[in-house]
């Protein structure tokens, strides 16, 4: 479990005369949020284990501008985007994997018009590919074997980009009992964090969105609520605490589950 992680920055790689095959875009949550940092490390462990030649931007990475754009601040978004594009194009980046559906969506869909053209995938898509190539295996299903797992579709992975199957394909490898919530895939309910809501109080209503969504999850009587987004993770974790179920139900990113199951 405690294998040290090795992670190089683009500038290190460049200094060593090497070019990575893929850039891991960590994102702000993955860099600063204590909970999300664990997801970041799990992704790195998997990349290390599979001998993927990757690098990160380190301190050269900056917010993609996603929350600024969703909040209506197009100036700030484009400033961020153009700065990041200068860095990415400077390193001649071709392919990017992100640990966050919001970064994924923005880099993939909103950077091309500003001069940033990359092949962008979400980490669940990379995981799916690594399993297909046989680079990672889980012997006997690992510690999640037979457990009840429900997957919460992040809006910016699912509806926004029609990625529904990759995360489910990966979860299948755990030999667990996958149960769908009544609202799933195209009908999945938002966790409440999108559109820059993560950074503000909700408007007046009669319920918090993450509580409503956690109820959907609890109906499936899961042992693990799986997500693919650091913000969904926060919202669902808070939701589970709201029902005092944090001792019975874990909220985990798919990358963490795979890293644990593969004993990395």
């Amino acid at each position, binding site marked *: 479990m405690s294998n040290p992680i090795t992670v190089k920055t683009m500038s290190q790689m460049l200094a060593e005369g090497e070019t990575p095959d893929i850039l891991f875009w960590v994102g702000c949550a993955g860099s600063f949020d204590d909970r999300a940092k664990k997801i970041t490390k799990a992704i790195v462990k998997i990349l290390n284990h599979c001998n993927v030649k990757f690098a990160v931007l380190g*301190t050269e990475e900056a917010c993609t501008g996603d929350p600024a754009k969703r909040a*209506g601040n197009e100036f700030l978004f484009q400033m961020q985007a153009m700065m990041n594009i200068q860095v990415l194009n400077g390193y001649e980046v071709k392919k990017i994997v992100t640990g966050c559906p919001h970064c994924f969506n923005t880099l993939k869909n909103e950077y091309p018009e500003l001069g940033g053209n990359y092949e962008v995938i979400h980490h669940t898509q990379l995981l799916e590919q690594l399993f297909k190539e046989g680079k990672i295996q889980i012997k006997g299903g690992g510690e999640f074997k037979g457990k009840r797992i429900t997957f919460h579709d992040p809006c910016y992975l699912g509806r926004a980009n029609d990625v529904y199957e990759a995360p489910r394909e990966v979860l299948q490898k755990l030999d667990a009992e996958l149960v769908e919530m009544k609202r799933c895939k195209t009908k999945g309910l938002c966790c409440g964090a999108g559109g820059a809501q993560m950074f503000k109080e909700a408007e*007046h209503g009669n319920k918090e969105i993450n509580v409503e969504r956690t109820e959907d999850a609890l109906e499936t009587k899961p042992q693990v609520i799986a997500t693919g987004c650091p913000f969904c993770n926060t919202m669902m974790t808070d939701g589970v605490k709201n029902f005092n179920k944090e001792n019975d139900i874990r909220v985990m990113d798919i990358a963490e589950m795979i890293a644990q199951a593969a004993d990395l």
Partner: protein
Amino acid sequence: MGISNIIFALILIGASVLFTINVRKIIANIRLGRDVNRSDKRSERWKTMIRVALGQSKMRTRPFAAILHLFVYAGFILINIEMLEIVIDGVVGSHRIFQPFLGNFYYFIINFFEILAALVAISCIIFLIRRNFKKVARFQGPDLKGWAYTDANLILITEVLLMSALLIMNAADPHGGFVISKHIAPMLPQNAETLHGVEQVAWWFHIIGVLAFLNYLPYSKHLHIIWAFPNTFFSNLNPKGKFNNMESVTREVKLMMDPTADPYAAQPAAEGAPQRFGAKDVTDLTWINLMNAYTCTECGRCTSSCPANITGKKLSPRKIMMDVRDRVEELAAAKRKNGADFHDGKFLIGDYISEEEIWACTSCNACVQECPVNIDPLAIIIDLRRYLVMEESKLPAELAGMATNIENNQAPWQFSPADRFNWAKEA
């Protein structure tokens, strides 16, 4: 040809002219929106229209409503073929002019139409029950109070009456004997002359009803039967998560970031008047947004799937669409009266849509996904936010703080950018 044929022809021409005038008004209203190019990917657009509008592919997720709607839709399209005969009969004074040519096939067709007419009537009655007695949640929102509620019931009642008239007309025809109407025939007076009178009344009621209904469309949510087609044809084909790029901002940001740019260089002449950032009123929205509003039939699938609305917030994507249509109608009417440059001092944001509504949106795209005719309420919400943020700096304080953090720290939180890579050492 008698006097009744001339009266009929005049009514037909009058109804057609009036309808054309009103549709042209709507097209002019839609053109009040900003231009946006949606002429690309023609073949994908045709396919989308055929799949979503003609094939109703997005209705399937709610099967019960989908089947009833399919009956009404098929009835509407196919029974209109019979309208051709009715119109010719009306003008030239013939009686079932296609009957001699088609022989037995004519009976087959009319029988088929009668079955459809009965299904339409039954479906509309079930729809009325769902709205008024069973109180299906998505038909109960505060945005449906008043005219919207009446409009929905008027449409359904009219359709039941029109279909009944069609069946009674056939039942009263001594040469009838069609599959449904023959069961109605025994209920009618058996005196030949009275029967002829009944047939005539039903015939006139039906055709005048249809023409009146046609002219009711421009004032009704029912306009979707026409606008669903162009609306799906011109709908957004990009991934739903991609928000449009604001070119006007790109120009300025490039100027700021390009070290070789000459800030004193003459700017290329702007096309037309300088535009606002984002949307304050409907004229700042695109014609796609406005066409969306005219296409909306207020079914409420969007609102019933909106996480903000589900949890009691004020936001209702359906209300956004209804507000846009109401505001375009109001502004366009005022401009027609007082000239194209006239503005009544009211605005979409503030007078119709509150800031509280648009800040409740999580941009989750559930409303866009749910809409059976590819309406995009999210695009409007984002353009309203852009106006508030970039023109008025009016936004929740926490979001202003978030923007400051991104500017200063390259992250939405107050962390030092120098600490961004610390996680790698914390293993």
